[in-house]
């Protein structure tokens, strides 16, 4: 097990370094940040250009610049955002809580909706309820997130005026005041649901097929023959075993959620890291892009790592040798 953890840690570390190299290298391939920063009227003034280059350390060799980038990246120091004219680090620290809130709420929704629906769907197999659940799952996997989001905004926020259409409301940082909690939740519902939709569908299918298999097994039949109530057999005996694959999948999809949120953040103007990343990409704002990608990449790799290690503890078959 120690060997397994050490190997996974090493793999995660190598992926992260590779990511940093690709991100840093790609920014250097796309063009010259120093020239981009020049005022347009001054385009031909070479002295200003050289000074600008020196100020940002862009006159040094590539490998030194890369080492410098790594050294600073560890401290979340990515320089100043070109558009916002303040440190990327400050923006990151504002944006990270928003994305984490969104991803965690999405995960909670996916489990709270997906698991019971899957189990009920298996127990009431071939009834109308089962069919409705199955149809929902099929559509949940086929409909594009951004479109479902817009349709929900039109109906729930526009015509019915039940929920806010965009933004995070007055919430800022990690924990809002008690009085702001209802407002925070109202703003979270739509984005979290859209983010969770595909995972709800997948978890439901998984829970349903696992449950069907378990319900068919001897020990469940024995418990029924013994005269135990359906409620106990289903929720205590069968569901516990059926949930093992669901838990694995849930862990993997949490890592995906942290990043799948780019689209959702854009549609709902949710002030998170994903929106910051897209704004950076569309405006050639290199420090902001580097910061946002490195943070989301690191979060993704770290979450996948933790899930893998926990799963290694839970299921001995995953461990190598």
């Amino acid at each position, binding site marked *: 097990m120690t060997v397994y953890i050490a190997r996974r840690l090493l793999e995660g570390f190598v992926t992260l370094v590779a990511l940093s190299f690709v991100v840093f290298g790609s920014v250097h391939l796309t063009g010259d940040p120093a020239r981009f920063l020049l005022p347009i009227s001054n385009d031909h003034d070479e002295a200003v250009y050289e000074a600008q280059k020196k100020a940002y350390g862009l006159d040094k060799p590539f490998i030194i610049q890369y080492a410098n980038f790594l050294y600073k990246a560890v401290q979340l120091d990515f320089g100043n955002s070109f558009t916002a004219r303040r440190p990327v680090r400050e923006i990151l620290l504002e944006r990270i809580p928003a994305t984490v809130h969104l991803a965690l709420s999405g995960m909670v929704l996916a489990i709270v909706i997906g698991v019971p629906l899957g189990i009920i769907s298996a127990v009431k197999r071939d009834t109308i309820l089962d069919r409705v659940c199955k149809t929902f799952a099929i559509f949940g996997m*086929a409909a594009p997130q951004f479109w*479902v989001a817009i349709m929900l905004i039109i109906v729930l926020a526009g015509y019915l005026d039940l929920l806010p259409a965009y933004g995070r409301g007055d919430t800022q940082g990690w924990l809002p005041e008690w009085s702001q909690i209802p407002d925070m939740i109202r703003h979270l519902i739509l984005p979290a649901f859209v983010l969770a939709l595909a995972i709800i569908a997948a978890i439901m299918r998984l829970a349903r097929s696992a449950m069907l298999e378990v319900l068919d097994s001897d020990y469940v039949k024995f418990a029924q023959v013994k005269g135990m109530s359906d409620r106990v057999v289903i929720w205590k005996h069968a569901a516990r075993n059926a949930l093992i694959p669901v838990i694995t999948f849930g862990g993997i999809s949490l890592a995906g959620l942290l990043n799948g949120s780019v*689209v959702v953040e854009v549609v709902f103007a949710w002030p998170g890291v994903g929106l910051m990343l897209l704004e950076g990409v569309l405006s050639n704002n290199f420090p902001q892009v580097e910061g946002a990608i490195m943070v989301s990449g690191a979060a993704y790799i770290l979450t996948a790592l933790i899930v893998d290690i926990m799963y290694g503890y839970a299921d001995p078959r995953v461990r190598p040798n």
Partner: protein
Amino acid sequence: MATSDLVLENAQPQLSWRGRLAEKRLPWIPIAVLLVLLACAAFAHWLAPHDPTSLNVINSKLAPFESREHLLGTDVLGRDMLSRLIYGARTTVQISVTALALGAVIGTVIGLVSGYWGSWADAVLMRITDAALGFPTILLALVVVVIMNPGPPAIILAVLLTVWARFARMIRGDVLTVKGYDFVTLARITGVKAPIILWRHIFPNVANTLMVITSLMVGQIILLEAALSFLGLGLSPGAPAWGIMVAEGQEVILDVWWLSLFPGVAITVVVLAFNFFGDWLRDYLDPKLRRAR
């Protein structure tokens, strides 16, 4: 006489071509949807009633079925929605097919090589494959766009980078099984060269898997392409692509709701059709892969 004929017929149940076709349980509705999609893509310039990019401010924001000229209405700039949808099918097919074909070829070659040679080549290739699989797709796509600037090549490359690894993984697994069969060993003993063994003896045996993954991947690729277009990373704004059309509609959702509705429905229907078709193909070609109900 009549009875003996009947007995004979029962003894040899020879199905007519209709019967054989029925036995395959072809998914007719998905196939019809896919044919319509392909027809729209191929003959967009004949099928579309109007130019998808010509502006017509006098007739802007027409509701669907309001005018016989513009069946599905017009957008804010008076462009015909139906024509834009038809041309959007062409964009979708062009980008998805290119990315998918490139991904399938590259992934298959890597899977074949990796599975057949084994040893260090396998170790290196599979490490790279794992890294590619472990990378979030949208993030990868954004890195690509940073390098290449928005446009169809950027989207194709982004999709390609996420797709090839899935092919390589699955094909390699199949090759490992086929490699152990006697006919491969015999071919090797008789001195057949490796490329010929791979092409003649191994590839035909993994072709089924290849077709199944391809058909199951199409839906995901279309969704990814639409999401990237929606984020403004693909064709320039105003071009007829379904993702862009949804994005244009978002700016005026309460005013002109049909702008976002129709392209989204188109994406969903097409993805559904591909998913159903892929499921059917998997069950038909490879019962082993069949999922639990």
